[in-house]
C-alpha cells in the first residue's frame, strides 16, 4: 500500500518532535552565579568581613557531620567568618551530580540568612528563589539534629532541596563548635 505524502510528512514531524523531546532531557553542564561568595560574606557583616577562621573537623565531630550529610565532609577543616555571635559559612553539597554553593549566616542558634550562591545543575534551580530559601530563616537545630521546622519541597527539585537542607543543618552544627556560638566566651573584636 503506497504511503501518501501527507502521512509521510506527519510521521516526519512527529519523529522530530520526539527527537527534540529526547534532546531536552539530556542534561548539559552549566553554572549560574547568583551572588559572589565574597560579597555574601561582606554583606553578612555590614560590608566589612572579618578575617576568615578555620574550624577543624575533629574525630569527635566527624560522626555528627556524617550524620547530617550522609557522608564525610571530604576536608579536615572548614573556613568561616565570625563576629560577636554571628558566623557566616560558604558550604557546598552535591544535589544530583554537581555541587551547589550556599551561603548561610547564623546568629545565636538560628539561621538569619541563607542564599544559593552558585548553582551548577541543569534541574532544580528553583531552590535559589526566596520562596524556598525564606523557609530557613529563623530555623534552628532540633534535638535529633534535624531542623526544628518542616521545609516544603519543590516538585522536580527534590535532590536540590535535600542538598540545601543538609547545608543548613551542617552550618548550624558547625556554628555550635565555634567560639562565636551562644555560651562560648565572647571573642575580642578585631
Amino acid at each position, binding site marked *: 500500500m503506497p504511503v501518501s505524502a501527507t502521512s509521510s510528512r506527519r510521521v516526519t514531524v*512527529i519523529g522530530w518532535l520526539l527527537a527534540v523531546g529526547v534532546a531536552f*532531557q539530556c542534561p548539559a553542564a552549566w553554572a549560574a552565579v547568583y551572588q*559572589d561568595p565574597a560579597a555574601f560574606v561582606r554583606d553578612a557583616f555590614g560590608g566589612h568581613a572579618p578575617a576568615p577562621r578555620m574550624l577543624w573537623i575533629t574525630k569527635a565531630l566527624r560522626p555528627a557531620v556524617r550524620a547530617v550529610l550522609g557522608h564525610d565532609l571530604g576536608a579536615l577543616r572548614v573556613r568561616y567568618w565570625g563576629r560577636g555571635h554571628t558566623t557566616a559559612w560558604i558550604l557546598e553539597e552535591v544535589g544530583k551530580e554537581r555541587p551547589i554553593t550556599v551561603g548561610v549566616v547564623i546568629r545565636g542558634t538560628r539561621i538569619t540568612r541563607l542564599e544559593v550562591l552558585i548553582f551548577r545543575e541543569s534541574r532544580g534551580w528553583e531552590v535559589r528563589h526566596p520562596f524556598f530559601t525564606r523557609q530557613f530563616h529563623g530555623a534552628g537545630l532540633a534535638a535529633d539534629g534535624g531542623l526544628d521546622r518542616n521545609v516544603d519541597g519543590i516538585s522536580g527539585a527534590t535532590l536540590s532541596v535535600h542538598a540545601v537542607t543538609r547545608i543548613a543543618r551542617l552550618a548550624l552544627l558547625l556554628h555550635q563548635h565555634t567560639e562565636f556560638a551562644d555560651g562560648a566566651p565572647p571573642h575580642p573584636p578585631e
Partner: protein
Amino acid sequence: MARRHTPRSSRSIRARRSLYHWHRYAGLAAALLAVVLALTGLALNHADTLRLSHRHVGAGPLLAWYGIAAPRPVGYLAGTRWVSGLDKRIYLDRQPVPQAIGPLVGAVRSGSLLVVAAGGELLLLTLDGEPVERLTRAQGLPTGLEAIGTDAAGGLLIRTPAGTYQADLERLEWHGAPALEPPRWARPGTVPEGLQAALRRDYRAHILTWERVLLDLHSGRFLGSWGIWLMDAAALLLVFLAASGAWLWLRQRRKRQAHRRPQVRSR
C-alpha cells in the same frame, strides 16, 4: 439463509482483515524494540534508587563501542608523590582524589601540605593524601588559575591571567607577587609507565555510567542517529498497535452482540 455479501460489506471485511494483518506485523516489528523501551524506561524511572549515575561500566566491549580511550596522564612530582590528571580525574599516585575535579595545572609540596591546582581550584592534602581543604572562588581564590609554584623562600605562588599572586593560606589572602626572583612553576614530568597503565585502566572504568547507557538505549542513540529514528518508529508502531487493537476489539465486540440479538428474539 446465507448472508449475502454486498460489495460494501466485502470491502469492509477486506479492510478489517488488512487491519488485522497490519496489527500483527506491527506487533512483530515493534516487539523487540518495545521490550527495550519498556525495560530501559523501567530502570530509568528508578535511576536514583538504583544509583545509575554512580555505577560505572567496566566492560571493555561497551567502552570500546563508545570509543572511550584514556588520555595520556599529565603528572607533577610533588615531593615524593605523583599527582596526575587524566581529563578531569585527579590521582595521588594510584589513589583517585575525588575532591579535585578538572584539568590538572600543577602540584607542589608546600611545607607539610601537598597543594593541587585543578579545575580553577586549589586542593590542600596532607602528605598521606587526606584532603585538608578545598579553596575556590568562594574563599577568594583569584579566577583563571593557570599554574602554581613556589618562590625562593618556599612560599606558594599562583598564576592567573590577571597576574601572579603570593598565597597566604592561613588568612586566605592573595597578594600581588613582586617580581624579585623568577618563580619556580610546577612543571609536568614523565609519569612512570606502570603508574600510567594503572591510571588509564582506572580512568576507563570510571567514565561511562549505566544511566548514560540506558538513556542511549531508550532513545536509540546507542545505534547512532539512525537508532533515534528506529526508536521513533517503534514508538509510533506502539501507538498504531494500541489504536488498531482497540478498533479490532470494538469491532469484534459489536459482532458478538449482533449475533446474540437474533437468538434472544427467536425464544
